[in-house]
């Protein structure tokens, strides 16, 4: 990165007003209406770690700690006030906050944490299952201490990195002895957070109201948060201009519209606040397909993609190019020495010739089925781009477009694809969200995981070793070796890392002030008085 990108400029511009903003009077009360594009039927963040769920649920149900720009381990305390891992990696002790009550009036105690950890995170959490696999017991010597005991040494660094996303605490008294997956509280949430769940009107809105007994004095500032369902992306920008909504997170306003909307008086664009939720644009390659099992072919595909063009044209500059599976913002784990594959169609053509796939009379070497994930406009557009990029090196890709359930089934259960465009999320530690992309032997049907048949015994060994390593520096070394190995093998092709843009009216205060802002509790958000 030689010249400053628009994104870094905007990030800087957004950071500057943070200083004088503390001086602006913050009014108490008010209703914040935000754009929502999906309504997950199960809103329990302890079961489903997904941004669509967190967006609403994080205001109601709190984790033990939240991500922060500053502070020890990049964390800010929430339900836990302190945590300490034992040197042998066999236990971790949490000191819990006192004087916290559930929204139904019952006191919050260590029993709730023990129950959530053992019965919910470990058994039902989509990501928690892996991280808390070795959690054996949770001791509760008193009402405000919880000691996690692990059967195998478990790195404290991993648990710390998992705190913001995977440790939402749910009330034991509502879940104990019930079918957890079908508990009505998964929809009508009960938590300890600054807002209480008020009502959900499918297709219209979800409404949260102020929790008057929140543990933090004088918080939250807002009286209400209303998530208005606006599935049409063009609608969000217009609704903001018309002041029907005050905030649109998760790039609800299309990137292509940002240049224009940024100039509208009274509207501010924030390109930070999503560092903890970095998405990665990747090309997944089905290694079972004969042509694609040859590393030269996979390298050719990696060389065929002009990453700068993708960032410029598809992401309008609001993304960074990427060569490896750990995003650059994670300075701890990102391996800067992975060279990767530059845009070089000549080299790609040479590699394909070498691999024994000459162009036929029609200029085509072989044909592939390309399944772009329908999750984002950008993944679909990149699918269109990839088809053209592959055509330039003599590979004819036929796009097969599916809706989300059909896409998930085709790719992650039936494995009926040759290449697909995917957008995995990086969640702060390679052990949470990265190793699952490369380890072999996963059963069919686990979404966003290695279903493309990549198998490398060395990689599996590194993953196993790293999982059992409790020394921070050694973990970093192993995960950097992993990045180098999978990039050499082109297990998948990393193209770009992107996050989101928040657009808000300028009288909304304390927007984007932590790395997971859109999915944090918003207790300090309010209107300028």
């Amino acid at each position, binding site marked *: 990165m030689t010249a400053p990108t628009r994104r870094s400029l905007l990030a800087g511009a957004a950071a500057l007003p943070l200083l004088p903003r503390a001086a602006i009077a913050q009014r108490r009360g008010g209703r914040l209406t935000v754009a929502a594009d999906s309504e997950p039927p199960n809103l329990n963040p302890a079961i489903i770690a997904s941004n669509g769920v967190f967006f609403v649920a994080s205001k109601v149900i709190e984790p033990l700690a939240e991500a922060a720009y500053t502070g020890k381990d990049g964390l800010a305390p929430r339900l836990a006030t302190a945590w300490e891992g034992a040197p042998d990696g066999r236990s971790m002790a949490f000191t819990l906050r006192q004087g916290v009550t559930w929204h139904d009036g019952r006191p919050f105690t260590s029993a709730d944490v023990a129950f959530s950890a053992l019965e919910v995170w470990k058994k039902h959490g989509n990501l928690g299952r892996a991280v808390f696999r070795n959690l054996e017991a949770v001791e509760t010597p008193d009402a405000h201490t919880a000691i996690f005991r692990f059967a195998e040494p478990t790195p404290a660094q991993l648990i710390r990195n998992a705190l913001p996303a995977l440790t939402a605490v749910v009330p034991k008294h509502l879940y104990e002895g019930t079918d957890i997956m079908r508990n009505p509280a998964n929809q009508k949430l009960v938590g300890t957070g600054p807002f209480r769940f008020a009502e959900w009107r499918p297709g219209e809105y979800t409404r949260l109201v102020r929790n008057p007994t929140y543990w933090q004095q004088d918080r939250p500032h807002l009286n209400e948060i209303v998530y208005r369902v606006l599935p049409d*992306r*063009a609608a969000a*920008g217009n609704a903001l201009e018309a002041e029907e909504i005050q905030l649109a997170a998760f790039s609800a306003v*299309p990137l*292509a*519209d940002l*240049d*224009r909307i940024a100039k509208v008086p009274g509207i501010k664009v924030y390109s930070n606040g999503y560092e903890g939720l970095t998405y990665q644009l990747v090309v997944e390659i089905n290694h079972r397909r004969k042509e694609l099992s040859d590393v030269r072919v996979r390298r050719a595909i990696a060389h065929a993609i002009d990453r700068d063009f993708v960032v*410029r*044209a*598809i992401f309008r500059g609001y993304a960074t190019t990427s060569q490896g599976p750990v995003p650059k913002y994670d300075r701890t784990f990102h391996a800067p020495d992975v060279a990767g594959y530059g845009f070089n169609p000549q080299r790609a053509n040479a590699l394909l010739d070498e691999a024994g796939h000459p162009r036929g009379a029609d200029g085509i070497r072989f044909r592939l089925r390309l399944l772009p994930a*329908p999750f984002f*406009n950008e993944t679909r*557009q990149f*699918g*269109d*781009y990839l*088809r*053209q990029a592959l*055509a330039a090196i003599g590979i004819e890709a*036929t*796009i*097969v*477009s*599916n*809706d989300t359930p059909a896409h998930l089934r085709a790719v992650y259960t039936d494995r009926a694809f040759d290449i697909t465009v995917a957008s995995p999320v990086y969640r702060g530690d390679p052990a949470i969200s990265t190793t699952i992309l490369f380890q072999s032997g996963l059963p069919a049907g686990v979404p966003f995981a290695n279903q493309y048949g990549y198998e490398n015994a060395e990689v599996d060994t590194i993953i196993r070793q790293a999982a059992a390593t409790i020394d921070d520096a050694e973990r970093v070394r192993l995960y950097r070796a992993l990045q180098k190995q999978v990039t050499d093998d082109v297990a998948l092709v990393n193209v770009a890392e992107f996050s989101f843009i928040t657009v808000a009216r300028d009288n909304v205060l304390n927007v984007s002030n932590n790395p997971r802002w859109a999915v944090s509790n918003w207790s300090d958000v309010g209107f300028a008085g």
Partner: protein
Amino acid sequence: MTSKQDSSFSEEKEAKRLFPLDAAPPGARSEKFFGSFFQKRTSFLFRLLATGEGLAGLALLSALVAIALAAPFLAPGDPLAIKGDPLLRPWQNMAHPLGTDRLGRDVLSALIHGARTTLLVAVSAAAAALGIGITIGTIAGFLGGWVDEVLMRIAEAFQTVPAFLLTLALISVTGPRVPTIVLGIAIGAWMQPARITRAEILSLRERDFVAAARVIGMRPLEIAFREVLPNALTPVVSLAAVIVAAAVLIEAALSFLGFGDPNRVTWGSMIAEGRTVLRRAPFLSIIPGIGLVMTVLAVHLTGQGVAKALRTRRHMA
């Protein structure tokens, strides 16, 4: 075999003898009908062009068809290829006279190739809808009885569901490819031609030439399709224009919703793509939109011209 033909031949003679004035011999009427279209084509064409709608519609439609047919010569290469900088405005760079889209694909070549897909899908869908509709309508009308009841109840069942939803449901199950899109549109549009054909057939089947055909020993379906149907076609054919126009719009709407064939350019998908940048680059949606308006207008005008020309023929007859 030969003896049967002989006998039917003699029966035909017999029919002529029996109905010398009242009924034209079987086959004659259908020849007359087709004759007005094909043998005396020049005069029908003349009448069509004499109506203002026919002239304008046919001119516009021929231009569109010519563009669609000549697409590979007018805009050689893959219309989806990335050719230049993204989001060039029209007239900004004469290499891309109508500008480029978000990925730098040439809008003009997409427009030209889009005409091809749009017309292909619309015409095939209309042909399929007419084919299904006419067949079912003829069978129902001619055979009557329980066959008629069953077929018409089926048609009504289809009619209770909005055509677009029916098409959408079919395509979301089978996956968006051109043949399934054509079939999907046809399945949502066959009922009207079926009902009209049936009504026409009902009014024709008691005529004397049908009785004559029966007398000479033609099988019922043979009579239905060879003798009765050609006389019932006129109103159905004028329906074709309405169906083509509807098919153009349904195809565009499907592509707009992301149910088009992603490997082909269609005007609907161009509008859908352009929608995300509607405020910044409205031309991306407006240009294919104009294409759609032109096509639907051309088809409608031609249809009206045809209907008018047929009316004058009837008056003259």
